[in-house]
């Protein structure tokens, strides 16, 4: 075998025999085979980080769960994506996201277009077992076209990644850690005064919730457009087709 020949690994996902090349993750292969593993922080075109933990899958023969968006399969693995245990944890994760900040859909600009809302519906989350923390984050409406409401943020980091990896500006990052984590602009300043922001709005459209939105949108009016992302990735890599 020449060194350039990709090594094909064969394994099963939910009993279905599948195969993967060297650099494909479990999530990639599942999607190619029509198996829909839930994700929130993952977005095609951005580096997977495995931080939302919704894409966790079980590996047969072990008690371990791995994040499928970053984990590579091994030959002969038996992967399970929808066991009772996984569903239980996924529901728990979504409930915790809801309880951490303020996700009152009825008054949200992305109501009906929100990935968190859709995930809750998909997983059958109809009540939250944990106490709501309801922190009071200040809104930043200093940007002429967009606004940020940290109360709706789930800290998925998509805005940070799209700004760094695609736009190349790295205007956003996360400050602090744990419960105090917050998405920031430059030196934690006002968005409208940012020296690095190019006003491109990619962060707004990759945001899964109503945390980043266009100004002037009312309840349920903020639908996000993401078709540009795989296209931009292709163009910027120089892979013109």
């Amino acid at each position, binding site marked *: 075998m020449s060194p350039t020949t990709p090594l094909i690994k064969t394994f099963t996902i939910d009993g279905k025999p599948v195969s993967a090349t060297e650099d494909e993750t479990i999530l990639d292969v599942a999607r190619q085979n029509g198996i829909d593993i839930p994700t929130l922080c993952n977005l095609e075109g951005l580096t997977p980080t495995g931080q939302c933990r919704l894409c966790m899958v079980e590996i047969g023969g072990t008690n371990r769960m791995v994040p499928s968006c970053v984990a590579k399969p091994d030959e002969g693995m038996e992967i399970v994506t929808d066991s009772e245990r996984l569903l239980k944890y996924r529901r728990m994760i979504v409930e915790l996201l809801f309880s951490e900040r303020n996700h009152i859909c009825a008054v949200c600009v992305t109501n009906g277009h929100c990935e968190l809302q859709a995930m809750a519906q998909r997983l059958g989350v109809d009540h939250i077992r944990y106490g709501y923390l309801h922190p009071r984050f200040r809104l930043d409406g200093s940007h002429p076209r967009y606004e940020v409401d940290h109360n709706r943020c789930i800290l998925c980091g998509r805005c940070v990644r799209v700004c*760094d990896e695609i736009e190349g*500006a*790295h*205007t*956003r*990052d*996360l*400050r*602090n*850690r*744990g419960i105090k984590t917050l998405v*920031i*602009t*430059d*030196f*934690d300043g006002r968005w409208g005064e940012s*020296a*690095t922001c190019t006003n491109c709005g990619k962060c707004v459209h990759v945001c899964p919730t109503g945390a980043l939105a266009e100004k002037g949108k009312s309840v349920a009016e903020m639908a996000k457009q993401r078709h540009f992302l795989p296209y931009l990735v292709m163009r910027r890599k120089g892979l013109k087709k």
Partner: protein
Amino acid sequence: MLITNRKIAPPADDKRWKIVDVTMRKQGYSPTALIETLHTIQESFGHVSGEALEYVANSLNVPPSKVFGVATFYNLFNMIPLGEHVISLCTGTACYVKGAGEVVEFMREEYGLEMGQTTPDGKLSFVVARCVGACGLAPVMILDGKVVGRLSPDQMKTRIREWMSHDE
């Protein structure tokens, strides 16, 4: 935001910036020198000011938000000047279970300090860390850089009183 290979002038005519410059020069002004440079600033100035963050970001060509993110992620850096003496209490899971919460109460009652506060006379600062990575020593507190662990909450209170009285 400056893009330049030229050396940028420090924010003020203060000898301490020379020490910071030495750290950055040793690393060839590489963006990877960020944490080490922040350490030098913390050691030389006692805190990491906004001015310092800007200087580092521009000198190493690291995005402002990243510099801010790193500086606030680690408990080793503090953005506002601390008092003369610093008690750092771990409130991570293991320490909390072992009674760190009682010490938080104690600091409030005895010294009137909430987490992250400094006494008005600038003598004492009370900071908390979310796990210092020494759970085997739980509950852990750090008194002016000296790690004290494996004490009961009552013993910790006594130790803090002793430590405070030595200074006077």
